[in-house]
């Protein structure tokens, strides 16, 4: 049989460069894509932070007039949207990209070009959302975009259109990335690595990816419905036509609550890696942590109406959702006790990543407890839309997700770059962030209890809110200084370059077994896995008996340890789409997928499609050539030339 294939004429030669901008645009390497995610997200983090500081500056004193109400609306909308979709999710994605293949002993993700596509779509989507600032039409309907406030009647500008289009484009990127990681984790584990031997961060990635894949389409539906309401005059959320604004709230929070766990679970995974390493003990109750994560991922779907206690769904519904909301605190509590159990009796080294992780536990517990408080509908109806809620979710998202991410940055930085971040500056960074963070958000609890509503651009002098607000504003600037110290730390350490070896922290998981930074093919030889924390036992085989009660390599793992379907890992078929499969087979020559610029072009075409909604429908025709070029070129391009 002839091996004829369709070919698509190349306009440019396939990128081969190892350095320079073309090597980045054409990259399909998971480590480079992870770096791109990290840098982009960090830039948006600074943007979102500046937005927050502007709001805090305005609120520092009563009846201030630094910022007009319209801008204030845009600021809080964009701050929320940026921090959720452009900062925490992609920062987590940066870790997914960097670590998942390394932790499971693979050479890349399952679909490297799809991975590149996710990043480029994310980049263009984030640019579209933020381009709204340049046109003076930034979204101003809140990050939740409640209809009908986000409809054309009350919001005639283009702002919410930017928001919808941007989020839908970001949704495509997230879904593609989520699919990629699910397939990667299920199919590309190293030989012998059963599901209950994969590192806990990879487990949390898996659960997060499943949540992303299932939740993002719901956001897309909400966006499409709102957009047709706005543009074509449909009646999804228009009560005059028979629609119902409450439906928007249902659909949005149906997405929105799983989203909360999408944000926090990766940070939980990071902390669950950092704590065992620096306590020099295995994670306490690994299966419990896994199952708690899975239960959170499942129950996260059945609590959404707690965002809507004051809508008037009736006592029966409110009670049901109050119960499910309180129940979801149980698996979260399980995890907290597991982390404490990990620390208990450990040989603890208090360095920067560990400090961040321990503060994560404390701050997240506070945020979790204030969450349980307003899981009760009567209490919640007092707190709804007050600063108490603001304080709660910032304790969870900043004190939780962000501290976890910083812990991960300090922990894995030597692996990513080959050199350490400065420890003294790191501790200064941690201390400033902790002081600033608590000074910002503790007073907000009081303000909320005192009845100060959210999303107001100013307040009267005689309300008694001035002192707390001032403290909060000072704290937020301290927090900003803390972040600044981190940036200084990065540049300072880059100049000093205190080099790190392959395994600087005496780590436990496979990523520490390869050099720092890892070679392009990750592992010279695909590792063989027999135990959870395989790398640790490779280094200290004498401890096997300590944890498993025997030392004989040929014996099965005895009772007490979680046994799993061992062989299954190797047997799984390559899932559909395996043409992109870039992993080597472990013993013959290492082959990696070649670089490709088609993901970039496809994403560019999609981005132009997106801009058509905020400019002119004819722009669609400008995007089509890029889109078709990317699609056809991609589908006919072999993985390797």
């Amino acid at each position, binding site marked *: 049989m002839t091996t004829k294939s369709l070919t698509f004429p190349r306009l440019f030669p396939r990128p081969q460069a190892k350095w320079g901008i073309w090597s980045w645009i054409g990259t399909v390497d998971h480590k480079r894509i992870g770096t791109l995610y990290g840098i982009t997200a960090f830039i948006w983090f600074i943007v979102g932070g500046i937005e927050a500081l502007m709001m805090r500056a305005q609120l520092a004193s009563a009846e201030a007039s630094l910022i007009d109400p319209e801008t204030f609306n845009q600021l809080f909308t964009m701050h929320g949207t940026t921090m959720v979709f452009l900062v925490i999710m992609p920062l987590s994605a940066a870790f997914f990209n960097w670590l998942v293949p390394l932790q499971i002993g693979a050479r890349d993700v399952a679909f490297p070009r799809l991975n590149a596509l996710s990043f480029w779509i994310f980049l263009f989507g984030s640019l579209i959302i933020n381009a709204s600032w340049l046109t003076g039409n930034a979204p101003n309907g809140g990050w939740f975009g409640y209809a009908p406030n986000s409809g054309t009647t009350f919001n005639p500008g283009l702002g919410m259109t930017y928001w919808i289009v941007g989020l839908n484009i970001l949704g495509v990127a997230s879904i593609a990335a989520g699919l990629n990681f699910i397939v990667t984790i299920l199919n590309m584990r190293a030989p012998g690595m059963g599901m209950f031997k994969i590192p806990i961060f990879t487990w949390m990635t898996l659960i997060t990816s499943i949540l992303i*894949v299932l939740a993002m389409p719901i956001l897309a539906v909400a966006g499409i419905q709102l957009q047709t309401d706005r543009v074509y005059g449909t009646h999804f959320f228009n009560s005059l036509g028979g*629609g119902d604004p409450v439906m928007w709230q249902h*659909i949005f929070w149906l997405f929105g609550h799983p989203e909360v766990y999408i944000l926090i679970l990766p940070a939980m995974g990071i902390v669950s890696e950092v704590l065992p390493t620096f306590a020099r003990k295995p994670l306490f109750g690994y299966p419990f942590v896994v199952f708690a994560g899975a239960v959170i991922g499942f129950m996260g779907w059945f609590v959404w109406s707690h965002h809507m206690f004051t809508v008037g769904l009736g006592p029966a519904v409110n009670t049901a959702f109050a119960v499910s909301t309180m129940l979801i605190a149980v698996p979260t509590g399980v995890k907290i006790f597991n982390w404490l159990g990990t620390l208990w009796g450990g040989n603890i080294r208090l360095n920067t990543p560990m400090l961040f992780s321990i503060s994560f536990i404390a701050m997240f517990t506070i945020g979790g407890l204030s969450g349980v408080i307003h899981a009760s509908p009567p209490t919640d109806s007092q707190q709804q839309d007050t600063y108490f809620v603001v304080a709660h979710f910032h304790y969870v998202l900043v004190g939780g997700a962000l501290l976890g991410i910083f812990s991960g940055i300090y922990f894995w930085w030597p692996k990513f770059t080959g050199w350490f971040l400065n420890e003294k500056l790191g501790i200064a960074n941690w201390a400033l962030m902790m002081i600033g963070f608590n000074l910002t958000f503790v007073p907000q609890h009081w303000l909320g209890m005192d009845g100060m509503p959210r999303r107001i651009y100013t307040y009267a002098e005689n309300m008694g809110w001035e002192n707390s607000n001032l403290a909060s504003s000072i704290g937020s600037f301290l927090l900003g200084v803390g972040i600044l110290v981190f940036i200084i730390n990065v540049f300072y350490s880059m100049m000093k370059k205190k080099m790190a070896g392959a395994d600087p922290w005496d780590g436990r998981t496979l990523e520490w077994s390869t050099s720092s930074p890892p070679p392009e093919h990750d592992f010279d030889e695909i590792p063989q896995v027999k135990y959870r924390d395989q790398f640790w036992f490779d280094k200290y085989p004498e401890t096997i008996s300590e944890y498993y009660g025997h030392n004989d390599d040929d014996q099965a793992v005895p009772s007490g340890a979680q046994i799993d379907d061992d062989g299954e890992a190797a047997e799984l078929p390559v899932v559909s789409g395996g043409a992109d499969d870039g992993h080597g087979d472990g013993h013959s020559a290492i082959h990696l997928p070649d670089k490709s610029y088609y993901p970039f072009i496809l994403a560019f075409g999609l981005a132009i499609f997106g801009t058509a909604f905020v400019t002119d429908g004819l722009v669609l025709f400008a995007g089509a050539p890029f889109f078709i070029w990317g699609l056809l070129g991609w589908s006919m391009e072999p993985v390797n030339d």
Partner: protein
Amino acid sequence: MWTFLGSDVMFFGAFIATYLVYRGKSLNGPYPSEILNIPITSVSTFVLLMSSLAMVLGLHYVKSGEKNKATLWILVVVVLGAVFMGFQFVEFREFAHLGLTPRTNIFGTTFFILTGIHGAHVTIGVLWMAFLAYGSHKGSLRADNAQDLEIAGLYWHFVDIVWIVIFTVIYLISATDGPPPGMESVIHG
């Protein structure tokens, strides 16, 4: 691919749920009972179902290496898909002619957006199949990379099963829906 389909389940699920929540809440006509044409839609449903059959046959012949038969059956998929889209186009025009547009009432809104999104899926599928039929004709789609067709096939079948649900829920079950209770007097009074 199955994971992607799981994702798409939520996508269509949300649309169908919206339809169901809003079912029978239209404040003005035309109502489903005045406008849905079951016999015509039954034919188009049947067409889509048979395209799924053609799809598996195409896949079978690709795998057994019978190139011409494979190309033929994939082309049948394309044609049947296009016929289905034609039916939908005619239906949309007919409804617009009878005074039902997405702007008319909540039934129009939910109906047009749901079936329109489904139609967009069918369109993507038809283009995809046309591309594969061309590949099969040129001999680049062979038994060793039949997986390409298999994935496209999974997508196609998925679009088909979504239509199975839509046909049942929107057409057969809703076809007798008139004005919501208490509204008859408003209309006639």
